């Protein structure tokens, strides 16, 4: 199988790739480089006085216990969001995969939340669960539950995980559905003839065959929980109560834009970038090879 295209001239391939390259350079490499440069500087908000301080911003950062707490918190949130949204999406996908009347409608409705922007998700859930505005909060209080995510950090964390996972269910659902439909019917039928019950069929046939999809989604979900939850946190809890819902990406915003500490904020961005590069590396190196196809 000859996959290589043969180009007569030297320039044509470059010309064809140029637009894509330009976009990546302008919108990724250049800002990333800016962040790296900024992380070595000490500068006021207006950029009037700048001094080069080498690694001082990083040293300050690692001296801060709150930063390590934020790292642990972020991993916990990512894990909780990924696991809850993956398992729910898988359950829904297995159900929607069955031939039934109105299946298309169900699928469409399940994909819907993906189109909602994160800040809007935050506002939606606030209207349901805000202690004084929330519709559901009233019922919770009537039932004798002291629902107050403004002060109770566990409740606040639950709120964020719930909203963030809910939004991501659609995306996972799509991929799972595609993965399920790619599983050959003959394999399932053979298992059925051998007398395997549906649960057993799922765990011994479907699940292993879905594993590449699961791993792919796991990485995507962790990256999502790292970055895209910002809008949800900002509209729902602003990192509170205390620091109970301050994740790494929210801390970058809070230190940089609210606190005017641009150097420290840039240093955090660089560290975040490294974390994501490592995650992506793991996906390509480890996951792509170890998963049974």
């Amino acid at each position, binding site marked *: 199988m000859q996959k290589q295209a043969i180009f007569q001239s030297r320039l044509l391939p470059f010309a064809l790739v140029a637009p894509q390259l330009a976009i990546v350079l302008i919108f990724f490499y250049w800002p990333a480089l800016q962040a790296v440069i900024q992380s070595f500087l*000490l*500068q*006021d*908000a*207006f*950029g*009037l*006085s700048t001094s080069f301080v080498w690694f001082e911003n990083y040293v300050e950062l690692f001296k801060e216990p709150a930063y390590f707490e934020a790292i642990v918190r972020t991993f916990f949130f990512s894990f909780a969001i990924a696991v809850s949204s993956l398992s729910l999406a898988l359950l829904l996908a297995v159900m929607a995969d069955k031939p039934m009347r109105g299946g298309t409608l169900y699928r469409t409705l399940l994909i819907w939340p993906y189109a909602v922007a994160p800040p809007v998700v935050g506002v939606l859930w606030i209207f349901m669960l*805000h202690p*004084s*505005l929330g519709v559901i909060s009233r019922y919770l*209080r009537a039932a004798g539950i002291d629902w*107050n995510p*403004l*002060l*109770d*950090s566990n409740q606040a964390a639950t709120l964020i995980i719930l909203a963030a996972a809910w939004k991501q269910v659609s995306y996972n659902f799509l991929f799972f559905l595609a993965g399920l439909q790619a599983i050959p019917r003959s394999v399932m039928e053979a298992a059925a003839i051998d007398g395997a019950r549906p649960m057993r069929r799922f765990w011994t046939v479907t699940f292993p065959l879905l594993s590449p999809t699961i791993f792919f989604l796991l990485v995507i979900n962790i990256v999502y929980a790292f970055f895209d939850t910002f809008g949800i946190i900002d509209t729902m809890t*602003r*990192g*509170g*109560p*205390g*620091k109970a819902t301050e994740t790494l990406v929210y801390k970058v915003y*809070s*230190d940089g*834009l*609210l*606190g*005017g*500490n641009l150097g*420290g904020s840039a240093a955090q961005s660089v560290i975040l970038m490294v974390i994501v590069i490592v995650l992506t590396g793991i996906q390509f190196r480890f996951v792509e090879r170890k998963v049974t196809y």
Partner: protein
Amino acid sequence: MALRQFAAAAAVAATFGLAASPAQAVTEIQWWHAMTGANNDVIVKLANDFNASQSDYKVIPTYKGSYPDTMNAGIAAFRAGNAPHIMQVFEVGTATMMAATGAVKPVYKLMAETGEKFDPKAYLPAITGYYSTSKGEMLSFPFNSSSTVMWINLDELKKASVEIPKTWPDVFEAAKKLKAAGHATCGFSNAWVTWVNLEQLSAWHNVPLSTKANGLDGFDTVLQFNGPVQVKHLENLVELQKDKTYDYAGRTNTGEGRFTSGECPIFLSSSSLFANIKAQAKFKFGAAPMPYYPDVQGAPQNSIIGGASLWIMGGKSADEYKGVAKFLTFLSDTDRQVWIHKASGYLPITKAAYEKAKAEGFYKDQPYLETPLLELTNKEPTDNSRGLRLGNMVQLRDVWSEEIEQALAGKKTAKQALDAAVERGNAMLRQFEKTAVK
């Protein structure tokens, strides 16, 4: 309105690259602000009236989002070399703006350079003090000022036969009675948790929030709000939070609906909440002065302001500054100040405007609109009550709120929480001091 039509025609002509026939170019003045709803209408009307009053300058107001958003937009624009001429910055952004020598043009300098008539003594010292140097030089122009008042649901207090409380112990008693009379989820509460329970509380009791006159006299200020008065107050709140006699309503003003809905019968917040209450509350309401602890000597002192002021950005042409100065003079006009006061519920900034509103009997039917003015002018301001000037105040408030939340949630004692807030805040102030332009 021939003038405005002419201006529009000139603008159209300019866009199409045609020269407007009479050689009278209009100088545009960009004004970025954070006002929404009725207050946005006030801004638009002020700009239109100014543009109609003369033909040399045109003020163009632009809404840039919330207070922090507006400030960040202005800073970003400055870095990119196209800052607006006038920027509305909330009071907690004052230190950040002040530290930016060269990025801003102090108002007193602007007025002197352009030769505009300007008498700093014409303004209410309780308001301008916040935006002036210790020498009394006005740095930014006060635009919309408010103060903290105690909003009262008069109907509910009457029903529970509770008097309007004057002192904090009275408030706690009243809240307990109101709770027993059916306000099970909230006897009293407040918005802007640090503004009410740390910043205003300290000024009102004449105890320091931080050294160096709360930062007005230098960026090397050190926080001091973990003193006995503030700790005792937070201890009281923590105690009352346990059974919802007091119920925490968040860091900003998102909990204000709890007063207008009738849930919390006593609610401390900004006097500028007036417009919303008037529009939404289905009960008789009033605004009492902030409560105080009678055993603290000298209390009540005077309150400090909230709201925002107008900062003039640096690096503009002499002609543009002339227009800005004329616009500030236009805003200072007595009748105009009275109108702003009535239309927005924000405070008048000149003595003449306050006197005029009083003489017109404006406060007779609406005494609660005078409450914040009476608080601000209660006594001659001291070093503890002139105002605040702390760097990165937006994030400082977040840090203080975090610690107060820890105390209210029972994870720390009041003293531990305030000690931690002071310690973390000081670290941030030192960071700010490092980057501030000397």
